[in-house]
């Protein structure tokens, strides 16, 4: 294996976050072409099925991961499932942070309609979100982390689907509006009696 390939492997092993090609160039002093060659070489060495590790491209960079075939042994050794599953409250909080970042806890609470303290604390603990300064009112703001991108296998936040995809059709929206207006009228009718 080339010296550059070996250095890249070591860097990816040490870094807790995916490393971009630019960062690798800068750290190794290699040119773009040379580095692309080293990554290709490393990718072949660590192709699925060859070793215990595989090379992955995620979260805007390169990173090493364990081969899925070792999952049972890893669970047995580390004593925990690959990723503790997320509760609906945590997923919803994560979705709000992912789309609206940076966003504060009161804002999350407003959208969800309930206090967001516990899901925010868990997501922080698991490294899926992190602090991103403070709002003008002094509330801590949150953003998603590279761990989030890794866990959800996203190259970047741009890979998240446009939330407008889920907005109702104009017909559905009209129906909902009518339903609400009807509820209001019924209420007004009661009051008038």
């Amino acid at each position, binding site marked *: 294996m080339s010296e550059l390939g070996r250095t890249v492997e070591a860097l990816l*092993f*040490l870094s*807790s976050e995916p490393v971009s090609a630019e960062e690798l160039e800068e750290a190794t002093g290699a040119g773009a072409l040379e580095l692309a060659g080293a990554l290709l070489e490393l990718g072949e060495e660590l192709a699925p099925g060859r070793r215990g590790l*595989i090379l*992955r491209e995620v979260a805007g960079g390169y*990173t*090493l*991961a*364990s*081969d*899925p075939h070792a*999952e049972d042994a890893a669970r047995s050794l580390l004593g925990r499932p*690959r*990723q503790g599953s*997320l*509760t*609906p*409250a945590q*997923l*919803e909080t*994560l*979705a*709000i942070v*992912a*789309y609206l970042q940076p966003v504060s806890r*009161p804002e999350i*609470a*407003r*959208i*969800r*309609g*309930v*206090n967001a303290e*516990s899901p925010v604390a868990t997501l922080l603990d698991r490294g899926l979100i992190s602090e991103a300064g*403070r709002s003008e*009112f*002094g*509330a801590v703001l949150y953003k998603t982390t590279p761990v989030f991108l*890794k*866990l*959800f*296998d*996203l190259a970047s936040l741009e890979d*998240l*689907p446009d*939330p407008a*995809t*889920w*907005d*109702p059709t104009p017909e559905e*929206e009209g129906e*909902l*509006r009518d339903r*609400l*207006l009807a*509820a*209001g009228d019924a*209420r*007004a009718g*009661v009051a008038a009696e």
Partner: protein
Amino acid sequence: MRLAELEFDLDVFSGPFDLLLTLILREEVDLREVSLAEVVISYIDHLEARGELDLEATTEFIVLVAALLELKSRLLLPGEELDELIELEPGEAVEELLARLLEARRYREASAQLARRLAGAPKVRYREAPLPPELRRVDLEDAPVGLWDPQSLGRALGGLLAHPPRLDLSHVLVARVSVSERIAHLRRLLRKAVEVSFDDAVAGADRMTVAVTIFALLELYKRGELSWDQDEPFGEITVRARPRAAVGALR
């Protein structure tokens, strides 16, 4: 199942819980006509059918129902109007409500999408290990003198001194008079006189304050600090301080 999606079939309302809540908060459904007992019983039925206790959802439910109970008890006090809480015109209220429902729906869909994405992600694990010690301690000792501006410390501290404006996120929990305030008030009166008439204790107070004073009275009774007599329904209530010694003996 999420609490917000739980379907209720009540006398005055049929549909998901979050719609019921929103309608109540916008006064589109009259809370006075909603049987909260029915809501609670439906929820317990749902829990039973499900066979397991989702602690998070249940906590959420208890908080919401407690808030609804408080709001309802205020509504039931004659003269206590909710006008100030409902500032929007009916048409505006519908648009506002619609916007909020759509927003909530958008992020519910987004979280479902994330859940699917998580389930479909490759079954790999990543290394979570600290840097080896020789790399961990960055050589800050070699960093230039004055790398950072001391003014940034003062600015950061100044930011921490700021008090936030009181953001009123919950119409339900607007407390204008607190039980602890009324406890202090009763204690003050009972220090001056051994016996106080309840009417005097709440002279000139609005109905909300009267109601909260009754809570304060119950609380002090529970703590053994006072007792009271009422000879007949709607009659005069005489509040009496318990001697200190008796209070001590109760502890």
